Structures are given as C-alpha cells and as structure tokens.
C-alpha cells in the first residue's frame, strides 16, 4: 500500500512538489502567525503585570514617553521632592505607592549595538513584585545587590556575579526574564544605593545644585488604587499636590493595547487568509487528483482492494502529501517567526515574550493537525465516491495505461 502511494507520488513529481510546497507555506505562515500573536499577547500581559500601578506620577517638567515609562519607569534625570511621596500616600483611595530614583544612563557600546542601560533605584516592594516574575527571583536586595535586565550580562549574569557600575562593585541579585521592554536594558538597585551613586557622580553635580541633595529626591511615583472607579478622582487630586504630571496607566495602557490588538488582529487575519487560501487550494487539488485518477483506483478495486482499503489508499496519499508539507513548513515558519521577532525586538519598547517550548509544540501541532485534517477531508469525499462506483464502469472511464 505504502509502496503504491509513494510510487504514485513520485510519478507526479512536480505536482507532488507543488502540493508539498503549498502546504508547507500554509503551515509555516500559520505557525509563525500563531507564535507571533501569542508572544505579543503574553508580552502585553506581562507588561501589565510589571507595571503594577494604575497611575504614574512624574515631575511636571519631565517629558515622558508614556508608553515607555509604563514598562520601565521614567528614564529622565528630572526630580521632585521626596515628600511628595507621603502626600500621595495620604490621598484617600490610594492603596500603595512605590517611588523610583533614576540615576543615569550608561552607554553600552558593544557588539555593534548602541544601547543605553538605565540605572534605576527602586523600593523594596518592587523587588518582591519583580522577583515573582523571574525564575531566579529573590524577594529582597542587599544594598550592594542589583537586578539586571533580561538582555544584559547574557551568560554571566548569575546570582552572585560581580558587576562594576560607575566605579563601584555590585553583586547580581537576579536577572529578569526578557520582556521586550526597556526593562531588558535596565539595572535596578535599592533606591538609597541609587541615590548614593548619583550623589557621587561628577557629571550630575549640577543637578543636585539645582534640585537639592539626591537623598531628598525621587523621579517617579507609581500609584496603585483601591478601586479602578476612583482613578479619575485620584488623578485629579494628584495633580493638585504639586508640580507633577500624572500618567494614567489604564489610559495609556489601553491605548497601547488597542494599537497592539489591531496589529495582532491584522496578523491573525493574514494568518487566517493564508490558511484559508491554502485550504481551498488543497481541497480542490486533492479532490481533482482523486477524481482524475479514478481509473487507477478502480484498477485496485478490480484487483481486490475493498472500498475501505481504496478510501484509505486515496486518503493515505493525501496524508503523505500534507504531512510532508507540514514537515517542510514548520522550519520555514520558525525562520519567518525568528525574522519577525528580530524586527520587533529592534524596537525594544515593544513587549514580546519569546515562545515557551510548550507554545512551540502546541502551535506546531495545531498547524500540522489542521492541514493534515484538511488533506484527509478533501481527499475522503472523492475517494468515497470513486469507491462506490462499480470497478468495471470506472475503469472504462479512467485513463490508465
């Protein structure tokens, strides 16, 4: 049986190759689309978790790109009085606040990429929140320990590794998972340590002359509220506490999410269209092949193949074709996905979670199973039709040698 199938496929070499490629393309695109879409969706969710705040308060003079700030805090050397943090806490309906101190950006010139590493001081509460999202996470940091972003210190960023920052030696507390956000290129440290470093920096002295000692300053306050309904009121009250700017997480996040959702939708639609196009092609292809070759099927019937054997034979051929197509398609799709990933990662504000092994397996089997099922279904109908006919009548119509 297998031998007959393979011989038939080899004879129609070009036709078989075209089918396998068509299936491969369909499977590949579907696979890549599923991976990209899931990655984006998970990235968004992760971003939402990392944000951990409903409102972000920054100095009024800060020019902040809200989308970036949402995922990584304010990346600017603009400061406000530490006391504002207490005022924020006092507002009714505020459940929790976290203050941040942005030290400075280090320019990393390595490997032909030009990246800024942000040094940010964070409160103890943030440490435990980030720790919960990292496999190696620990709930608190010593004053000389830092959290490194997911794309920094690749192989050497293990817990306890030493790093030199602005002349000081620090230990790695843990490393974050890559998230496709500015956090990937951030180094987070206890807020007091961050202030100390900033205070000592020659380059930043002019700032402190103007704004006061860093010990009394903060650069951003993350605010979590009791209930979402209170956000507009609290945002208004926050604007009244001093010269600050309030960024509503919900708002910007929603805006950002809508944009991404639209993108995801387009991606899903493109995937669906290729899938449907591929499926329509396959259905017509298998149907016409099975029909064109009814003389051959009838010959097998005449020589003793039962109806069910004949159907199994026709369908088996479709399975071999769609299965080989799927095998060709998976690496193709993965390559396409990697290309897409590299494009997305180039814009590091874009949250993207690389796929887990499970997601890879699920997406791959989804694409393969779908196409193999389509192959089976589209070959089965004409196969059953041919098998029902009396062999002598079909053979008289079929064109075989």
């Amino acid at each position, binding site marked *: *049986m297998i*031998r*007959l199938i393979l*011989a*038939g496929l*080899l*004879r*129609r070499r070009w036709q078989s190759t075209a089918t396998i490629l068509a299936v491969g393309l369909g499977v590949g695109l579907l696979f890549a689309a599923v991976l990209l879409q899931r990655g984006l969706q998970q990235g968004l969710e992760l971003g939402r978790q990392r944000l951990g705040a409903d409102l972000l308060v920054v100095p009024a003079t800060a020019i902040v790109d809200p989308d970036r700030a949402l995922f990584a805090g304010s990346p600017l050397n603009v400061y406000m009085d530490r006391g504002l943090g207490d005022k924020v806490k006092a507002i009714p309906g505020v459940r929790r606040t976290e203050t941040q101190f942005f030290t400075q950006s280090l320019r990393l010139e390595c490997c032909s990429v030009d990246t800024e590493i942000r040094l940010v001081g964070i409160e103890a509460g943030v440490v435990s929140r980030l720790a919960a999202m990292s496999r190696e996470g620990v709930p608190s940091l010593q004053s000389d320990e830092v959290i490194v972003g997911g794309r920094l210190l690749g192989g050497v960023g293990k817990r306890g590794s030493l790093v030199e920052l602005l002349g000081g030696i620090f230990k790695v507390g843990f490393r974050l998972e890559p998230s496709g956000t500015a956090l990937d290129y951030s180094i987070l440290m206890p807020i007091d340590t961050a202030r100390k470093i900033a205070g000592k920096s020659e380059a930043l002295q002019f700032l402190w002359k103007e704004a006061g000692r860093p010990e009394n300053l903060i650069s951003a306050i993350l605010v979590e509220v009791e209930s979402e309904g209170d956000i507009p009121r609290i945002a208004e009250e926050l604007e009244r506490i001093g010269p600050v700017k309030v960024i509503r997480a919900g708002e910007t996040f929603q805006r950002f999410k809508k944009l991404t959702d639209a993108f995801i939708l387009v991606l899903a639609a493109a995937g669906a269209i290729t899938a449907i196009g591929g499926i329509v092609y396959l259905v017509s292809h298998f149907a016409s092949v099975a029909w064109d070759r009814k*003389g*051959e099927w009838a*010959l*097998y*019937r*005449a*020589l*003793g*193949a*039962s*109806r*069910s*054997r004949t159907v199994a034979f026709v369908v088996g051929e479709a399975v071999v074709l769609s299965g080989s197509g799927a095998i060709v398609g998976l690496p193709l799709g993965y390559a396409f996905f990697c290309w897409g990933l590299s494009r997305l990662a180039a814009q590091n504000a874009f949250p993207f979670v690389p796929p887990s092994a499970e997601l890879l397996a699920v997406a791959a089997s989804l694409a393969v199973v779908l196409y193999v099922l389509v192959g089976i279904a589209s070959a089965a109908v004409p196969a059953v039709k041919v098998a029902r006919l*009396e*062999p*002598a*009548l079909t*053979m008289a119509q079929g064109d*075989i*040698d």
Partner: protein
Amino acid sequence: MVSATTFLEARGVRRSFGTDPILRDVNLCIRSGESVSITGPSGSGKTTLLSILALLLKPDAGEVWVAGSETSSLSDRERSRLRNQFFGYVFQATHLVGSLPVLDNVLVPALIAGSGRGRRDYARSLLAGLGLGNRENHLPHMLSLGQRRRVALARALVLEPPFILADEPTNDLDPRRAGQIAEFLLGLPARGHALVIVTHDRALANEADIRLDLHDGVLRDAAESSDEPSVDETEAAVLHDPFARVRGTTLDDQQ
C-alpha cells in the same frame, strides 16, 4: 445445485445499459481445469459478461455463484476478497499502473492481499516464464503492447487464482506474439486454472474445451451458431492460424 467442482456459475444473468439490453439471459457453468472460449461480434456484450463473472459489475438480474456462494448477497469486503483471490483478469486494455515498474505491477494483487514480499520470487519466475525476465524494472510505457499483455498476464497469475479471465488477449498483436500468448493461456488448464477467454480468433477459440458464442444477449454453443460465419470469423480467417504456427516454440522477448 452447486457442486464442489462447479466453481463459477451464471444463472439467468441480465444486464442492460440504459434501455439497451446487452445480456438477456446468460447461463454458464465453469469447473476447475476447464477452458471456455466466448466469441461474438463487437458490442455483443462479451466484456460486460466477463466483468459480471469477475464481480467487477453487478447484473441487473440473475445470479453469479463463486465457489459455492451466491455473490449478490456478499459484502463489498467479501466480493473484493473473491476478486483478489479467485480471479485473475487480463483486461483488454492492459491497465498497468504507469508509475510502477513491471515487477511491482505484477505484484499489485499481492500488495493488496498483503503478501507482496512472499510473492516476489514467484512473480519473477512468472515474468521469466513469459520471456520478460530482463524487463522487471522497466516502466510500462517502455514496453510493446505484446509485452504489456504478458505483464498483465503475469499479474493475473501472481496469486495463482483458480480462474483466469482474459478479454481479447491476442488482439492487435502480430500472429507470432498472438501465438505466444495463446499458447501460454491454453497451457493454464493443465496447471489447474480454469480459463475463460474472450476472443475474435476462431482458431484460438476452437482450442477451448467449451466453445460458446454470445449473440443477441444469449450464450449458445459455438458449434450450433457457427453455420453462418460472423464478421469476426472472416477477420480471423484472414489472420491464418497464429496459434498453430508457433506451437512448440519457446516464448522470447524479441520485438
């Protein structure tokens, strides 16, 4: 009643295509080791009858008994098994699978039966016996019609079925090739196969134990109906007697 030696029997078989009645009332009984020839003008329904006997076509009415079973009541699986195990059919148009080399073509019934491996050596010996020993790996399109007929013959024999049905096996062949095939076929009853052969060739037909003529949808003894020669008979006369001329020679593979 169907006795142990009555393997294949048609009773009151009728078949029409559209409004044309092709077979009106066909009765036939073939026992193992017998040879039967069926002659008749073109379009008289010889192929239709052979197809019905080989379970490739169902009669509109009447019964076909194979090895003691009335076949119209059998399931598709059982009919398929009978086709595979009981009949070796040599189609008028050889019907070889173009994608398969000669040896695999011969093995198709065995592949279907699931005994491809076990029949390989036997298939080889059949091909060798038919003078095609050096053509095992050729594709059908590389062969002449006479060679393709012999491949089809080997395929019909590969499972050693009790019945060989051959539909005009010597047609379109020069007398020498036709004679080779005829001799091979006529040797089959001695090896235990029953042979049903449809032919226009009077000389070949006359070699059979039972000679039947299909006329107006009814089978008759050829001796009775041969008073007025049919068109086919005159054609056959022109072709001499190829069978007699090659008797005693061995099969070979020369073009």
